[in-house]
C-alpha cells in the first residue's frame, strides 16, 4: 500500500510519497549573477529592466519567463500543469496575476512576502501528494526598483540607504512539482508552516531582525515535531535574514539550547557576498527561491547535500501599517528537501 501523508507533532506534515521538483529555473539580473551565487543560476538577463518601460513590467517579465522556462525544462506544456501557484511583493501580487493571465492556468495567488518560496513549494507538494493536482507550477519574482517603490521610496528620490537595509534581489524563479516517479529532482519530504511571530521591531530598514524570531520559532518547532537535530541535515538554509538578522537568529537558536554547528547558511547574506552597496545583504521573494532552485538544487545534483532544511522568512507588514507605527510581523515556513 502506498504511504500516505501524516502529521508529526503539532505543526509538521510528513508527505506520503514526497513529490519532486522536476523542473527548476532561476532567471536573474546582472547584480545577482555577479555575486558568489551567480554560477548556480540558469540564465542571466543583461539588463535588469529587460527592455521594459517600468520596473513593475520588468518584474512581471522575469516571473513569466521563469515560469515558462521551468515548464520547458520539465518538458511540459500548459495543458500538462494543473495549478499555477505564485506570489510576489507588489500590491495585490500583480506580477503573479498578470503572469497567470498570460499562462491561462488555474491560479492560486499566495502572499508570504519573502517566504513565498517555501509556502508555494510546500502547498504544491501537498496538492500533488494528495492527488489534487498532477503537476503544479510554482513561481515568484522580485525587482529592486519595483519593491523599493512598493515598500520604501521610488529610487528616483535617491534616499540614503542604511547599513541594516537589505537589497531586493532582481529576478524570477520557478519550479514544477510532480509525483516522485516523474523525474529525479529533490523531493519535498516535510513541511512545517510557520506562525506569525512579532517581537515589535518597528524599523522598516531592519527587516532581518524582524524576521529572525520567526525563523527561530519555526526551526525549533520543526525539530520538536520531527524529533531531529541539526545533525540530521547537511544544510540549514534561512533567508533572507542577511547579516544582521542571521546574527540574531544564531543567538536565539543558541539560547534555546540548539547548536547549529557549521550547518547554517543564509540566502540574503550569501547572494551578494560582502558587497558594500548591498547593506546587510539581499532580500526579495526571489532570493530564497533562487537559493533553493539554484544553489541547493544544483549542489544536491552534485551530491554535496542530501538533506536540506530550508527556512525562508518573510516580513508581513505593509507600508501603511509601518507608517502608522505598527511593527513588522515575521513568518517562516520550513520545508525539507531530500536528494535521490
Amino acid at each position, binding site marked *: 500500500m502506498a504511504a500516505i501523508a501524516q502529521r508529526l507533532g503539532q505543526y509538521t506534515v510528513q508527505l506520503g510519497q514526497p513529490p519532486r521538483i522536476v523542473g527548476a529555473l532561476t532567471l536573474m539580473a546582472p547584480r545577482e549573477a555577479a555575486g558568489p551565487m551567480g554560477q548556480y543560476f540558469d540564465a542571466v538577463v543583461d539588463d*535588469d529592466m529587460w527592455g521594459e518601460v517600468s520596473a513593475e513590467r520588468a518584474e512581471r517579465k522575469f516571473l513569466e519567463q521563469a515560469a515558462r522556462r521551468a515548464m520547458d525544462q520539465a518538458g511540459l506544456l500548459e495543458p500538462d500543469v494543473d495549478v499555477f501557484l505564485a506570489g510576489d511583493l507588489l500590491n495585490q501580487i500583480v506580477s503573479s496575476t498578470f503572469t497567470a493571465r498570460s499562462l491561462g492556468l488555474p491560479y492560486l495567488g499566495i502572499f508570504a512576502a519573502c517566504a513565498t518560496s517555501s509556502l508555494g513549494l510546500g502547498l504544491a507538494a501537498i496538492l500533488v501528494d494528495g492527488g489534487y493536482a498532477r503537476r503544479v507550477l510554482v513561481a515568484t519574482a522580485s525587482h*529592486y*526598483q519595483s519593491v523599493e517603490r512598493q515598500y520604501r521610496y521610488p529610487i*528616483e528620490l535617491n534616499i*540614503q540607504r542604511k547599513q541594516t537595509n537589505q537589497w531586493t534581489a532582481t529576478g524570477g524563479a520557478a519550479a514544477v512539482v510532480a509525483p516522485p516517479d516523474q523525474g529525479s529532482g529533490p523531493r519535498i519530504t516535510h513541511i512545517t508552516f510557520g506562525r506569525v511571530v512579532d517581537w515589535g521591531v*518597528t*524599523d522598516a530598514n531592519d527587516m532581518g531582525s524582524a524576521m529572525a524570531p520567526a525563523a527561530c520559532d519555526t526551526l525549533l518547532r520543526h525539530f520538536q515535531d520531527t524529533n531531529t537535530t541539526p545533525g540530521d541535515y547537511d544544510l540549514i538554509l534561512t533567508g533572507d535574514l542577511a547579516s544582521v538578522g542571521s546574527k540574531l537568529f544564531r543567538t536565539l537558536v543558541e539560547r534555546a539550547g540548539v547548536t547549529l554547528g557549521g550547518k547554517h547558511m543564509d540566502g540574503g547574506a550569501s547572494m551578494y557576498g560582502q558587497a558594500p552597496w548591498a547593506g546587510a545583504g539581499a532580500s526579495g521573494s526571489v532570493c530564497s527561491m533562487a537559493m533553493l532552485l539554484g544553489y541547493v538544487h544544483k549542489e544536491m545534483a552534485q551530491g554535496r547535500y542530501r538533506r536540506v532544511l530550508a527556512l525562508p522568512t518573510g516580513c508581513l507588514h505593509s507600508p501603511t501599517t509601518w507608517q502608522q507605527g505598527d511593527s513588522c510581523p515575521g513568518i517562516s515556513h520550513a520545508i525539507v528537501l531530500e536528494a535521490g
Partner: protein
Amino acid sequence: MIYFWAFVVGGLICAVMQLIHLHTPRLTPGHLLVGLTVAGAVLNGFGWYDALIKFAGAGALVPVSGFGAAITRGVLQETQKLGWEGLFTGTLEFVGLGIAAGVLFATLAALVAVPRA
C-alpha cells in the same frame, strides 16, 4: 575667511542631520527635511538664522534650513508693509524662486534621464 566658516557651519548642519538620520529608525527622510526647514524658520523668527547666514554664507544658505529662514524673512518683511496679510503674501516671497526652479529643472531632468539601480 567666510569660505572656511561656510565649510564648517554647512558641514556641521549636515553632520547633525546625518546623526539624527542614523539613530532614529522611525524618522523618515521626509521628517528630517521638514524638521530642518521648520528649525530654520523658527530660528529666524528671532533673527538668528540671518545672522548665521551673514557669518557663514552658503554654509547656512544651502541646507534646507536656509529655505525655512527665507520663509520667515519674507513673512516678516510683508507683515511690516501689509500687517497680518503678510503672513500669507510673504510666505513664498523669497522661496518662490527656489520652488519654481526646482519644479522646472526636475521636469527637464526627467525628460532626459532614466533612474537606475
